[in-house]
């Protein structure tokens, strides 16, 4: 699951240059295959995304700035980035904690818990929203109503980003060589110090990369916030929902502008992630 949860985790070129394999240069048949693959990617992903950026700049930089600073769009962007940062930090802590418990602890039902951690990744976002609304909405059996509040938004984002940090930290924890910890313990170091000085530095790259992924996912989130946050403009409307409204209102240039902002923020997060991983792998 790690490979999929952290799609950008591989170093730039796939695969180490193993001794015996020289990569075969391109033959005509394979060149055709490459061409088709690039065509497929272009028609479906690259050209449409380029069209978004193009459309956002179509009417000039002033129009772009105006589109993203309209009161509701700006409020939506602020809420989105703010909530996503909160969610990223919470995930950093709780995700690491959960990974720790899953790796180092033993209790009945652990395998079940380990499996369902991935549920938010498999569950359709609208279903996630409905599920949260059932427990934390107007008909909540425990009397809590977070619908139409920002807490509802944060809840939804926490739900969908749950697996990210857990699944990036878990494998690293599993591989961790415990000799150093045991040596430190035998020398009298306390558990907290061991964690801080020995374990944490080794985990940090994985923790941060999982957090960056969670952040990227959170800013893009749409489906799960639609139901529980009620999408009150200025109060609980995230960027993706505001964007949806702009598209429906045929304000495509404005929509493209907001989209471009989201894409840029995601790009920055992922580039930072890539740099972090290079730093991590250099530390060995």
């Amino acid at each position, binding site marked *: 699951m790690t490979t999929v949860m952290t799609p950008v985790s591989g170093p730039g070129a796939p695969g180490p240059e193993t001794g015996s394999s020289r990569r075969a240069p391109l033959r005509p048949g394979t060149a055709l295959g490459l061409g088709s693959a690039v065509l497929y990617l272009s028609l479906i992903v690259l050209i449409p995304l380029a069209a978004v950026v193009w459309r956002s700049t179509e009417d000039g930089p002033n129009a772009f700035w105006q589109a993203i600073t*309209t*009161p509701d*769009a700006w409020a939506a962007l602020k809420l989105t980035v703010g909530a996503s940062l909160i969610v990223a930090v919470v995930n950093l802590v709780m995700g690491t904690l959960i990974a720790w418990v899953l790796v180092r602890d033993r209790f009945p039902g652990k395998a079940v818990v380990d499996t369902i951690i991935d549920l938010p990744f498999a569950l359709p976002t609208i279903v996630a929203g409905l599920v949260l609304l059932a427990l934390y*909405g107007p008909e909540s059996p425990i009397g809590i109503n977070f*619908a*139409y509040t920002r807490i509802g938004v944060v809840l939804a984002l926490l739900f969908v980003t749950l697996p990210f940090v857990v699944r990036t930290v878990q494998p690293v924890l599993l591989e961790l060589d415990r000799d150093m910890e045991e040596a430190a313990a035998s020398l009298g170091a306390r558990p907290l110090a061991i964690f801080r000085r020995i374990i944490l530095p080794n985990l940090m790259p994985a923790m941060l990369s999982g957090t960056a992924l969670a952040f990227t996912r959170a800013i893009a989130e749409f489906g799960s916030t639609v139901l529980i946050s*009620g*999408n009150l403009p200025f*109060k609980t409307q995230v960027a993706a929902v505001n964007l949806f409204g702009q598209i429906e209102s045929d304000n495509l240039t404005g929509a493209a502008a907001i989209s471009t902002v989201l894409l840029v923020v995601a790009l920055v997060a992922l580039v930072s992630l890539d740099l972090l991983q290079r730093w991590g792998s250099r530390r060995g």
Partner: protein
Amino acid sequence: MTVRRLRGIAAAAVATTALVTACGGGNGSAGGDGKVQLALVAYSTPQAAYKDIIAAFQKTTAGKNVTFTQSFGASGDQSRAVGNGLKADVVAFSLETDMTRLVKAGLVAGDWNSGPTKGMVTDSIVVIGTRKGNPKGIKTWDDLVKPGVEVITPNPFTSGGARWNIMAAYGAKSNKGADQNAGMTYLDSLFKNVPVQDDSGRKSLQTFTGGKGDAILTYENEAIFAQQNGQAIDYTVPDATLLIENPIAVTKNSAHAKEAKAFLDFLYTKDAQTIFAKNGYRPVTQDATGVTFPTPPQLFTIDDLGGWPDVTTKFFDAKTGLVADIERKLGVATEK
């Protein structure tokens, strides 16, 4: 799992897809074996009504060989979608301006409103919705501007249909438009009591049923729909309120103009109008049976206030409209 089995599975998958696609129906307008397919594009609230009406239509001789695709959504969004290529043979909207947009785009004939009902197929009125039992006793327009009362109404710049609410309030308090100052003062006070403005009428209804607000400005048919679906909502018909008229038309480029017109005519028959009435709409013909609606003593129409073209420019122009001013003071978006 051998390669051969994998190939077999792949072949089966492709075959299944082909089968399902064939059965699931493509998007062609010929439904196959002599059937004609009409595309109905409508605003969101009459969805339940049209389901029953289409079934009734298909029992008539005119409708025997007609199948339908149906699309429902916010009135303005649907109108824009048709303008952007959403196929439609019959279009039904909440607001006349959504229809005139298509007339301007050349998709609906200019004489769509020349019939006896002026192109309107259903009516409704603006009502004041409250919690079940009306614990705060909100019954009149004046009650809505009392301090501490929270009123839910959608943003009239994203929801064209929301403009009915605003103009009802304005018309009631300005003596049907005679006293503009009184009307605008009222709207000012009203908006101060509006905590949030949703994008559409249906969404504002859900905000209200979700627990927010003390009262909601909504259409009678929406309130009835909510009640019929178990929502704990009551509503009061104010003494002075606006008659909501919903337009409908056949599109100019319909491939099945005859059948579309036949469906349109069916909508004015007693059967169809009765179905509308059962779903909370006020019929436009006189012979619908089974449901009666209270008549507000001071009912007025949008024509009394100048008609939609004038009202749209005067009140809802994004830059210079009177309501746009109020919204700007509150920091709410007026650009669409």
